[in-house]
């Protein structure tokens, strides 16, 4: 019953023999050994498994590996380049947008698409835009700030301060 497929993940081809029921997240984590994308639920609710498929953020636990044949898949491992970190990675780090880091890869991949489509989102648009990703640690404030910071960075605007603000 298995099928031979080739997944193009972060530009590299991974050929594997999989059962049609193999979920994309398992193919990425186990067959391609890219463990940056995580699994946080079994009901497509948490977004920890979010990757980009042809540029679109996707819950890879709700997509079959066979469906991704021939598509461009991007995961957290592909964000940084030889030139350095992706602005979203910098944004998350500088704004303290991660604690345990488990949700972080999924959130960053989601944010990449969000900013691609809406380079200058409002706070409300960011909050709705990441509503498919659960984070249990951060309370989301700093994730919102990180995405705003990244938005400024990607547009070459003045960067907001990354010092914590207190009342």
């Amino acid at each position, binding site marked *: 019953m298995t099928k031979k497929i080739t997944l193009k993940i972060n530009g590299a081809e991974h050929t594997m023999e999989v059962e049609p*029921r*193999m979920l994309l997240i*398992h193919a990425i*984590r*186990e067959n391609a*050994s*890219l*463990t*940056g994308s*995580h*699994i*946080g*639920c*079994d*009901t497509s*609710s*948490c977004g*920890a498994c979010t990757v980009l498929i042809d540029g679109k953020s996707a819950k890879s636990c709700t997509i079959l590996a066979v469906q991704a044949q021939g598509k461009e898949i991007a995961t*957290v*491992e592909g*964000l*940084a380049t030889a030139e350095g*970190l992706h602005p979203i*990675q910098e944004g*998350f*780090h*500088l704004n*303290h947008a*991660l*604690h*345990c*880091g*488990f*949700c*972080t*890869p999924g959130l*960053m991949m989601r944010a990449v698409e969000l900013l691609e489509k809406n380079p200058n989102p409002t*706070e409300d648009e*960011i*909050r*709705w835009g*990441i509503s*498919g*990703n*659960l*984070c*249990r*640690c*951060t*309370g*989301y*404030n*700093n*994730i*919102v700030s990180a995405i705003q910071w990244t938005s400024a960075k990607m547009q070459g605007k003045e960067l907001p301060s*990354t*010092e*914590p603000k*207190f*009342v």
Partner: protein
Amino acid sequence: MIKCKTSKEIGGMGHSKKRKEDARFIQGKGNYVDDVKLPGMLYMDIVRSPYAYAKIKSIDATAALAIPGVVAVVTGKDLEKYGLHWMPTLMSDTQMVLPTDTVMYQAQEVAAVIATSRYLARDGKEAVMVDYEPMKPVMDPFKALDEDAPVLRSDQEGKTDNHIWHWEVGDKEKTANVFDNADVVVKQQMHIPRIHVASIETCGCVASYDKVTNHLTMYMTTQAPHAIRTVIALVAGHVGLTEEKIRVISPDIGGGFGGKVPVYPGYVIAIAVSFLTGAPIKWIEDRSENLQADSFARDYHITAEMAGTKDGKIQATRFKVLADHGYTDASANPSKFPTGLFSIGTGSYDYGAAYMEADAVYTNKPPGGVAYRCSFRVTEAVHAIERMTDMFAKKVGKDPAQLRMENFIKKEDFPWASPTGWSYDSGDYHAGLQKAMDAIDYHGLRKEQIEMRAEGKFLGIGISTFTEVVGAGPSQDFDILGIKMFDSAEIRVHPTGKAIARFGTKSQGQGHETTYAQIIAEELGIPMEHIQIEEGDTDTAPYGLGTYASRSTPTAGAAAAMAARKLRDKAKKIAAHLLEVSEQDLEWEPGKFFVKGAPEKSKTIQEIVFAAYTNHPEGMEGGFEATHYYDPPNLTFPSGAYICVVEVDAETCDIKVRRFVAIDDCGNIINPMIVQGQVHGGLTQGIAPAMYEELIYDDSGNILNGTFMDYLVPTAVESPSWETGHTVTPAPHHPIGAKGVGESPTVGAPPAIVNAIVDAVAHLGIKHLEIPVTPFKLFKELQNVGYFKKTT
């Protein structure tokens, strides 16, 4: 502004240093337990009971074993042969690893399937046929105490009822006396519902037993690796797994919040199977299993009473608790504290009479009672006292802020002896509340509330001014399974002046790799960038009881400072030797010792350390290492003043948090950025039980919301934009004056939110609302007071 003694380069206390651990997480290089892959590894999945209470008539594994790739099916009877079918809980109760005859809650582990892949293990699990004889479960903790209730723990010899323990504290008679003579008494029955930590990473492990060396390496999601090693040795020592042969590695943890303190049956089964087969066994729970079977938190039914004068002076409180522990008491409390630190429930107020009692019962629910982001039952206590304070204010017709101001323990009255036996270390409650009120424009809001009501719109303002008790704890009182609750740090400084430090705690996102480095940087003046922190490997780290209950900074953080001070003393001796002066002539500034009055004559810490390896004084031990086990003299008492503003839709009952200001006092602050991050996260975990989360069971014992579809973890949309700030009242007895903050927001936020919602609809006759306050619940309550008409 927070004053820093060290330069930004050194990065000691008070600097908002960016986190060192981030680099791996933002690049997908974290190493969580499900990322561990060992050669020859097999996968385990677990067959779980569909019934809450049933006899197991038979387990037929034939079809499962017929699936190619399914290696074994393990049942309780198999474990029984090795005496591994029961294990102790941290509260000296007992828990089944796998049942031999009876299941006690829905989703309980019934059998384990071992296969060559995750998928095949799953197929095997579906194919195991279990024949049950269902029995009527005991779900209501009140009915569990009825005479005719079935005795659930018939495994306990001589057990004739479902009562677990009784606990009490305070002066019962004195308190009764105050109540009898008080002008005003308010009383409320409330339930702090069963909830779940729901860390985004579930629990799991890879158990790897090497038959040749007789060593077990256990990668697992645990917040307390050392304690777990001891527990494993206690459970499996008789089959040859003694403590020195066990290495527990807690890799990166995707959130713990107390849920990764207990030992779950899955871990033990994985160890047993690895021990028997010699193959590494991976077990990773699904989310549904995690929600349905792993330790719950809270589930306290509280009858709370407050007595006071008609002009608003609180005089006494009395709490009576019924604790639903499920089928076994698997709490993770210090041994002598069955209700944890619930007795902190007299709050931030100055009065002298209190009495609290609690009874715990068994029911057919999953076991537990973990300290979910809470220093052992403090959340329950704070909810009760803060709700009662509001109800009392309402009854005497006082503004709840004013009433709190009038009842607070005064700054100059610390240390303050509470009527339940605590010695509060320090605090400035007036300053905190005032700051919160100013930040949110409290009086302006009260005006707006009146205007909005006139237009039929509901605005509510809620306050919570809580005192936490954290940092368990002093060894005369605090132990788990007899092990004293100190914690440890070991610092090694290399010849070039760079360091590695190891701890018995375990970060699950709290940023220990950064904050511990800052503490050591503060004490030794070595730049924090050059201090590497390691935790979570029992083979290398010093013994400690782990990270929960906001104890890491108070205990291990203190240990780090104390170990560093030992090194600084040594450094002073070396500096005196190098500068050829006496120690008394030396003065310290972060990073160097210099000669008093001749600052140009100095030795940097790096020079001193180098000398410790190359040119140390005669008679002194070489090297530059120190270890400290810190036994706190007292707990620490962080506090907070939270104000929440909600808008309630008068038609749909939708509730929106408009603003939330949280002023925390956690003493001296190590890293303001991280403290703020902890507060943000905790606040979202506070809005969760206040408005969204609760584990719900029906009378037949079925969980009704055991997935993330129905267990409603807040997203960025539900979570408001938090506004935070602080006052700083150092802990006088703590080496660095820090108090611990991780849990204050989870503890303090729910009552602020509920008080706000009650306040929004108080004019319609609502006096109290049970959490979670959902629009649906609010609708029903508004029907009860006649605001909405009943149609049926």
